[in-house]
């Protein structure tokens, strides 16, 4: 284990930025802190770095306690052997590329010849070879990003901290850097603690993700696990798109089996079946939410209803062509609007009636 947080709390004024968070990061993995802004993910990173003092709890790096309120321990940031890439990259403008990367090595008393060799090797690794003498302020955004990465990796830190490192790049470059980072991490085997609010970044890069909300860790797990089996409504709605329909439990059904829900409001009179979500069993008559990912809804274009299938009818309200597919807002029962993903292979038009099938194994039922 590289990093362990145990009940760490950080208070800013009246705000509990981090509220008793506990985490463990294993060696060689990319561990991501994901959440909306203000959820405490950056605070967590800064606490690990030693840029903030915790108000409660304990932080250990490779088995060595670096910050602990009960034991009155605090190790200064420069004695933690961490690497960090800042959102603004924090490239020192008064040094050139070589000097920026050599700085941490010189602080560690590395011999001159070794410094040159290590810097050259790491610059080569990220494709900055030959730019040694370039002034740091003359680099492009992507180059600065790579330089910041070099500077954080050159002394082989125990843990690499990344604070929203891609947020200042444009969309194309961001995708490219995401792939590069993953390849690089797999090659070097460095442990990474990554902070982002971008779920695509988190899902695509991480080995494991901790979803955070209001200073607490909501759920920790592998990307697919979180996406397919969210433990709470917050995680379900934060990761990816979710269509939520309201209703009342009609038939609770056997444990692990299907539950039948009678829909409310404009869809009153319709029934849908789904399987139980992670919460406790639902009794008949209890208010419930049905959740399904848009990509799991199946479409039959002609609007014919077959009563035994798990179906609803709807009308395309707005149609957006987004390149690889269509996104459509579909009105159900004249009132409820849901998001749908429609394949490009067929023709669609606004006002078109759709027959939507909700496969029961992809519908989950949650207490309201």
């Amino acid at each position: 284990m590289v990093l362990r947080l145990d009940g760490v709390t950080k208070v800013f004024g009246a705000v509990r930025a981090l509220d008793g968070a506990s985490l463990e990061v294993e060696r060689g993995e990319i561990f991501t802190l994901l959440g909306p802004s203000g959820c405490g993910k950056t605070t967590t990173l800064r606490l690990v770095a030693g840029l903030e003092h915790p108000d409660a709890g304990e932080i250990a790096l490779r088995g060595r306690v670096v910050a602990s309120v009960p034991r009155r321990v605090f190790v200064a940031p420069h004695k933690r052997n961490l690497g960090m890439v800042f959102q603004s990259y924090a490239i020192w403008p008064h040094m050139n590329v070589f000097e920026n990367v050599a700085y941490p090595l010189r602080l560690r008393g590395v011999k001159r010849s070794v410094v040159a060799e290590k810097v050259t090797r790491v610059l080569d690794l990220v494709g900055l070879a030959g730019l040694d003498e370039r002034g740091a302020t003359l680099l492009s955004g992507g180059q600065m990003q790579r330089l910041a990465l070099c500077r954080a990796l050159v002394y082989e830190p125990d843990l690499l901290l990344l604070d929203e490192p891609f947020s200042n790049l444009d969309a194309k470059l961001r995708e490219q850097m995401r792939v590069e980072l993953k390849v690089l991490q797999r090659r070097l085997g460095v442990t990474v603690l990554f902070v982002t609010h971008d779920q695509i970044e988190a899902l695509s890069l991480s080995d494991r993700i901790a979803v955070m909300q209001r200073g607490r860790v909501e759920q920790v797990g592998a990307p697919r696990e979180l996406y397919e089996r969210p433990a709470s409504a917050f995680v379900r709605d934060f990761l990816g798109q979710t269509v939520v329909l309201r209703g009342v439990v009609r038939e609770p059904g056997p444990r692990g089996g299907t539950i039948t829900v009678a829909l409310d409001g404009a869809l009153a009179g319709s029934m849908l079946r789904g399987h139980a979500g992670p919460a406790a069993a639902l009794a008949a008559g209890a208010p419930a939410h049905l959740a399904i990912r848009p990509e799991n809804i199946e479409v039959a274009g002609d609007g014919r209803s077959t009563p035994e299938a798990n179906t609803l009818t709807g009308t395309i309200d707005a149609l957006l062509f987004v390149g690889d597919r269509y996104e459509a807002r579909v009105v159900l029962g004249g009132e409820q609007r849901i998001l749908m993903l429609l394949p490009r292979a067929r023709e669609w038009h606004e006002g078109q009636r759709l027959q939507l099938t909700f496969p029961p194994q992809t519908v989950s039922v949650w207490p309201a």
Partner: protein
Amino acid sequence: MTTATPAVHRRRVPRIETQAVLCTVVLGIVAFCVVFPVLLVMLQSFQVAPPGQPAKYGLDGWRAAFDEPGLRAALLNTLKVTFVRQLLSLPLAVLIAWLLARTDLPGRRWLEFAFWAAFFLPSFTVTLSWILLLDPEYGLINTSLARLVGTAPFNIYSFWGIVWVHVLTGSLTVKVILLTPAFRHMNASFEEASRVAGASTLRTALRITVPVMAPVILSVLLLGTMVSLQTFEVEQVLGLPFRFFVFSTMIYDLLVTRVPRYDAATALAVVILAAMLPLVLAQQWLTRGRRYTTLTGQFQNQPHRLGRWRAPALALVLALVSIVLGVPVVFALLGTFMKLFGFFHIADPWTLNNWKTVLTDELFLRSLHNTVVLAVGTAVAAVVVHSLIAYIAVRTRYAGRRALDFISWLPFTVPGIILGLALLWLFLGVEMLKPLYGTTTLLIVAGVIAGMPLGVQIIKSGLLQLGSELEEASRIAGASWWATYRRIVLRLMAPTLMAVAMITFVGAARNIGNFALLTTSANRPLSILQIDYIAQRKFEEAVVVACIIMFISLAGALLARLLGLRSGLG
């Protein structure tokens, strides 16, 4: 690795590290040199025994200060001068700052530098050159007008004469140099949105730019008011002939009579301090948490086109530049070549003798040496002290950082002459410090303290623009706090620090108020020498010295500008 009990590197009370110790040392020294003298002043106002006799405490000083018949007049005069100065200079300064920062006025960079240079002109020198022009009897403008139209309308020795010189020396230039960078840094999208919505340039300036900048303008106004309450030289030279006193000259008057009335003088100083404190607090409140964001290439502001107003605007600014910069420099220089200062109409008025006399005077050479040592020493010491204070106030979580920040403002609230007096008591009263009396070191201490509010302020805004991630990156890369301060902060701040060095260098070279009571014949600098020449009615020699100080100041201004000082408020 299994979860074995982690090894604990025990470090008791870890937050008290070198950093906290250093902060406390800085706070202690600054408090001793600034707060202690201020307390001494307060205490002294209750000490009623005449100098040389055992201390006796009472309210006589306060009573005397308030019974003094001139006091009410001095109070009123101070308020009147302050109010009129601000009233005249603020709208003009806002207009000029807007023209320089947000329009296509030709040569605006050079014009801005002209105001910058004018700010550095010693007010004493400026006053002398305006006497040459506006003296009721001999003033060049008056004599010319008398010949042309038969009347000599102007009298520099008057309320309006004092206001005129003030507006041109401090009030206008300081506001322009503080407001121009602030206007330049304003996010252009506010203005662009207004233009797109259909507003004209003028309407946008009045309805968007000025309101958006209101906090900065108000803060500059407060600073200007504080500076106004401080002034000394102009009133001393121009007010004395017609018995016009303001607070500071009144205090000086009480101190230089045959039996100095320290109690009454310090009582008045406490009144000024009490009046200043709310202004300082208001100023700090206005600038709290201001986002000093550095401008990047992305937000390059498009200047407004002035169109047909370009020529009149240029004419206005050029006229002002020639009045605030041209006139003082030319006439101070002319004055040095006059046989009789101010007498243009005598036959063959010109001579080189003044320069010869001064430059060969043993007294002058010693003073020049003193000034150079003093100014360089002050600049070096100020950079170290001011940058430490600014860094602690902005970047650390040290418990006393707010106190330190506040203390750095205190020298602004005490009239220079009183601060000098307080330092005199401090250095004569503490046995260990007594040997420093009469040395340049004492003057350096005074110079560092006098320059503290501005120096700390400039470095603070520079640090806020720096962004803390550059330092944090260094900490994580393995550098200690001290190594980061040396290798990252000081390097990146070098231009700002050099500029502060130049400003304090110039400040020390021309400072009169703080040094007047601290100098002896051994450590007398040029600024005091010129006053001594005036006291001996040697105007010609005085103006030569004033001119030399002026050129030292202008050289400093140019250097500071070349080093890239762009700091202002906002």
